[in-house]
């Protein structure tokens, strides 16, 4: 049952990255869209995301619940030492979720108020994945120091460091990329689609650049990133598969495919997470000085894991079919592939 719970944990983290990430990405796209096109971008986005965005963010709740029920020690350590970035991420989630909802449910669509919601929405859409990435960057790279003696080394420099921040920026670019690819298939006309293709291209380049930076900074800070990714066959294959599918994705875009490409984009992000996740498994949090917090060692007692696993299995029978039906009902139907 422990492995089932772990599978659910990774599954929900992955889906939060993909679906929540694409949501944040839509805000990032809006942030980098010229003023003339903003309102069209918003319209497409609203049509595509309106019904589903709340559900997209539920994956975070599921992941958090699995963490504190199933792996309370790891959750406790993350909450203690990464208090500040988690807090900033929460602020981002709060600001973004409410601004998105408020701008649609403000009965009087005044220019000043709408602009105000838009500003909050786009900036928080940028900040949230940035800090999500920062947190991910610092747990995998031995930045958490449980023996730290000063406030700065215990609570600040474990996340405010070059490696974590570049991972954060990489996450932002990936989110934007996911959203752009998704929106290509939701565009109302060719003009819009072309604009989203251009955005996808820019975000793709940004992701490559920041990805390169991640390797560069890792090398400077003696983080064994190269070894993690190229040192074992599974991670290596994952990275290669991601690269091939990226090439295929662009090929398809230029052949006029607009829907199926989103599967490729999701596949690439999945592979990136897989390659990092696999190399560290079963460790989730790497602590400075060599200690690791492992999912296989630091879990809740057997009975709890069993009950949690059961709840998740039953829950997924309820959630997944209805979620699929929700996505199916509200997507554009004209061109399925």
């Amino acid at each position, binding site marked *: 049952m422990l492995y089932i719970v772990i599978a659910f944990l990774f599954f929900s983290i992955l889906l939060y990255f993909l679906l929540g990430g694409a949501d944040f990405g839509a805000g990032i796209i809006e942030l980098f869209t010229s003023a003339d096109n903003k309102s069209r971008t918003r319209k497409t986005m609203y049509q595509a995301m309106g019904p589903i965005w709340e559900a997209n963010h539920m994956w975070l709740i599921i992941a958090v619940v699995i963490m504190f029920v199933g792996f309370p020690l790891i959750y*406790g350590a993350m909450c203690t030492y990464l208090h500040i970035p988690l807090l900033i991420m929460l602020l981002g989630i709060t600001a973004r979720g409410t601004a998105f909802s408020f701008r649609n449910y403000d009965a009087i669509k005044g220019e000043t108020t709408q602009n105000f919601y838009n500003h909050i929405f786009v900036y928080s859409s940028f900040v949230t994945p940035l800090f999500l990435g920062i947190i991910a960057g610092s747990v995998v790279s031995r930045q958490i120091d449980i023996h730290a003696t000063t406030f700065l080394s215990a609570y600040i420099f474990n996340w405010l460091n070059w490696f974590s921040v570049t991972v954060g920026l990489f996450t932002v670019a990936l989110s934007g990329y996911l959203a752009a690819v998704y929106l290509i298939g939701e565009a109302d006309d060719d003009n819009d689609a072309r604009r989203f293709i251009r955005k996808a291209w820019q975000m793709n380049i940004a992701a490559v650049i920041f990805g390169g930076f991640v390797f560069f900074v890792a090398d400077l800070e003696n983080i064994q990133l190269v070894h993690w990714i190229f040192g074992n066959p599974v991670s290596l294959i994952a990275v290669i598969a991601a690269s091939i599918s990226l090439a295929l994705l662009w090929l398809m875009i230029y052949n006029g495919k607009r829907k199926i490409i989103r599967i490729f984009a999701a596949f690439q992000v999945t592979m990136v997470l897989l390659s990092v996740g696999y190399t560290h498994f079963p460790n989730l949090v790497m602590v400075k000085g060599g200690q690791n917090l492992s999912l296989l060692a630091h879990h809740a007692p057997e*009975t709890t894991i069993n009950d949690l696993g059961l709840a998740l299995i039953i829950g997924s029978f309820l959630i997944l079919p209805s979620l699929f039906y929700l996505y199916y009902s509200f997507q554009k139907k004209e061109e399925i592939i």
Partner: protein
Amino acid sequence: MNDFIAARSQMAISLGFHIIYSCIGMVMPVFMAVSHYKWIKTGNPVYKNITQAWSKGVAIFFATGAVSGTILSFELGLLWPKFMEHAGPIFGMPFSLEGVAFFIEAIALGFFLYGWNKFNKWFHWCTGIIVGVSGIASGILVVSANSWMNNPSGFDFVNGQYLNIDPIKAMFNGSWFSEALHMTIAAFSATGFAVAGIHALMIYRKRNIVFHTQAFKIAIIFGAVAAIIQPFSGDLSAKNAVKRQPAKLAAMEAYFHTQPYSPIVIGGIPDTASKKVKYGIEIPGLLSFLVNDNFKQEVNGLDKIPTKNQPPIAITHLAFDLMISIGSVMMLVGILYFVALWKKRSWLSKKWFLNLFILSTPFGFIAVEAGWTVTEVGRQPWIIQGIMRTSEAVTPMPGIHYTFYLFTAIYFTLSIAVIFLLSRQIKMVPELYDRKT
């Protein structure tokens, strides 16, 4: 402000706001489903308009409730990591199920809000019902987790170790039913009175009278019924507290000295130094009667509890009395509504009658806050009753008072935004719904 007090205050502020958003978020869908049903059955467009108007409120409150709930699920760990390390595996069951219920609610809400004219009308109606049912289920589950903190069970506590954990037993601890029942009824009466109050104000101002009258009626029937039955569930909760949290009950009643014919003290200012209540009205024997069903048998007072294990008495007592007195007023107003409905229909449009409901708008939520204060402050100094002290659970990170100020500011801003948006929705009722009727 020291970090421990700051952490407690931050938690109090977060829960204090979240409880309002979530009560409305779980009860409004039920109102909505009723008027939706009436629309499908009667074809009267007023009901469709009410449903759509309310659904916008639901969307606003759901979004706010969802983010404040996300904040809370993190705050449990951010502020109380030691508590979560030990309690997580024991009382996590209701949280996992709540995660599922909440997810289903979000999916159903997507269908409901965006599904007008898109689906079969009964399917669409059902998605609204699912929003309500899963919202109420979420509420019950979260309260069940809280009840475990009041009545920890489902494990053995041996030498500081938590052994033989049974999450299902922990979830169905002896307090879950009375607490969940009390909270659910409270949510219905508070939301019912608040919604009815706003519509009463609009009737009073003679705006869209047909629309607001029908909306008022749906809301107040739920609110009034809930307010009338609430005292019985309150009695159940108090009897449960006697058994499991005698310190909380004694603090609620500011009952210092164990004695036969145990009295109830109404109001007054408890003075812990002299162990007396100043200016209170004492009714001898009533506490004995409520607890033991006879006037003589003594109830254990605060003198049976070591001082270091006593909750703050003045806050608990005054919050309790506030809750009881408001609850009583709401019950009377509720009864009056049914009297008007069945015997004195002319009252329904009278100014004084409307004024009564306008005045009652915030009552339910004041009572909810007071009741929440009783249960949380009354449990202190424990975070897990009798097992772990709140001070042992707090995060080692310094500087929590800054985050306390930050979150206080956030919650006030959010609430102002919600009020602003709701008032704009209400203001636009004539433009949005009149032409269609």
